[in-house]
């Protein structure tokens, strides 16, 4: 089995899964019957957000963002193993751990990966809906200067 073409790459999975209600993600992760070992402890804390100012290119910190992260190894009954990870702008370390489990399962196509893929696809749909709203904000407020110019000429 393969993922459909156009399926989002791994570096988007965390963000897309985080779009969904968290209990849906958690129950999907716990439904997978794997042994989960924390490679580093799931943590929640803060991250400094580093920007380069676009005027002169000086680096500076805009402020802090919540960060939750997890790095796990999952092992099936048959001995198959895979590593998964998640980092979120969020403060729920357990949610990050659940996403890390799904990340491992999906990346290695371990048994049950289809459920994870389905969730990622759902997250992508939610994301697309959000992007559409933003495009509408732009499309309805686009200033048409060529029209203004013609009026001025008349």
């Amino acid at each position: 089995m393969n993922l459909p073409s156009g399926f989002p790459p791994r570096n988007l999975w965390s963000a897309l899964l985080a779009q969904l209600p968290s209990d849906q993600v958690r129950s999907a992760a716990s439904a997978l019957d794997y042994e989960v070992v924390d490679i580093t402890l799931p943590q929640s804390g803060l991250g400094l957000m580093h920007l380069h100012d676009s005027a002169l290119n000086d680096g500076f910190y805009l402020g802090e963002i919540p960060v939750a992260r997890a790095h796990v190894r999952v092992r099936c009954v048959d001995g198959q193993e895979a590593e998964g990870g998640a980092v979120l702008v969020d403060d729920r370390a357990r949610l990050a751990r659940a996403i890390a489990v799904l990340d491992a399962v999906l990346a290695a196509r371990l048994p049950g990966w289809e459920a994870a893929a389905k969730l990622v696809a759902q997250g992508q749909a939610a994301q697309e809906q959000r992007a559409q709203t933003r495009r509408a904000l732009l499309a309805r407020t686009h200033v048409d200067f060529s029209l203004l110019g013609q009026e001025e000429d008349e």
Partner: protein
Amino acid sequence: MGYVAIKGGKAAIEGAAAATDMLRAGSEYAEPLVLDAIEGQLRLLVSRVVSEGGLYHPKLAALAIKQFQGDTLEAAFALRAYRSTKPRLLETPPQNTAHMRVIRRISSAFKDIPGGQMLGPTYDYALRLLDLGLVDENPEDFRAIARRFLADAPDSELPDSFPKVLDALRAEGLLPPLKPVAGAPFDITRQPLIFPVPRAAALATMARAETGSLLAIAYSNMRGYGDVHPTIAELRVGYVPVMLPHPVTGEPMEVGEVLMTECEVVAMFEGDEHGSRPTFTLGYGACFGHNEVKAISMAILDRALQKGMTDGATNPSEDPEFVLLHVDGVDSMGFASHYKMPHYVTFQSDMDRLRTTQTKTGNDTARQKDSV
């Protein structure tokens, strides 16, 4: 009696908390505020709190607004205190605002900016007439607003992100060149501000400054205590995707997005002392959330401070120490509030000094009176 005022403090403190909560509830017919409503319908208030609190956490900001009954200073303060309990896990690599998923983008320097101008959600051209239609909104109509908006939106092939206006000006040689990337920036949450401080410290301080304080000092520069005379090259609002390395692959992955406002102003040109080609000068403002007045004020002050740092300050808005030590809302409100605390001992001491001094000068005055 003085003693009565400070004795029994414990009961009074508990009573004050209950009294505050009672007024929050109002009456038994009141409905509690739902946090989703605060986050959505009071989004500009949430924006102030996340930026002044220095922590991009709109959900906790909404909670703080509810808990502190709409006081932005108190709400920002609660976010700051929350920060003190959390370990610093990481520092992001530099994020790129050119990837911002824009919802608003304007320029007052050019009308025809590459990608076009999009007003987005703004009150700039709104008539400040009270809309009596909002007094008693029908929930069904309210819910239909978003649906109708999306249905009326024209199909568009607009991209999510846009090039920066400054890049075009830079390509024409009108702007100073970009500086080479330096080391780790100044971290105002860890390093005390000991002057002189680098520009990174000024930008970080202003990014979490109190909006009104920043505006007031920037306004002094606009009105004449300064000469920045800015033109807004670009003002943009949107969501910046935050990229961090994936724990397994190490590849950059998107971990979420942050709503922010960014403003670049172009100011009077100057040449350097070596007689090189003169270019425009620039100011930069940015903050969490949607807060245009703050981003513009910061951009003006950034330019004013750059001038003060190189040529010496001739106005308050050009003096880094004056500006940066007085714009923090949490610091300044704490100081103003602390005057409400008991000062019985120091006042007793003040009275002692005044009486002693009065006795000395009073004896002189009494003698003068006697002689009249």
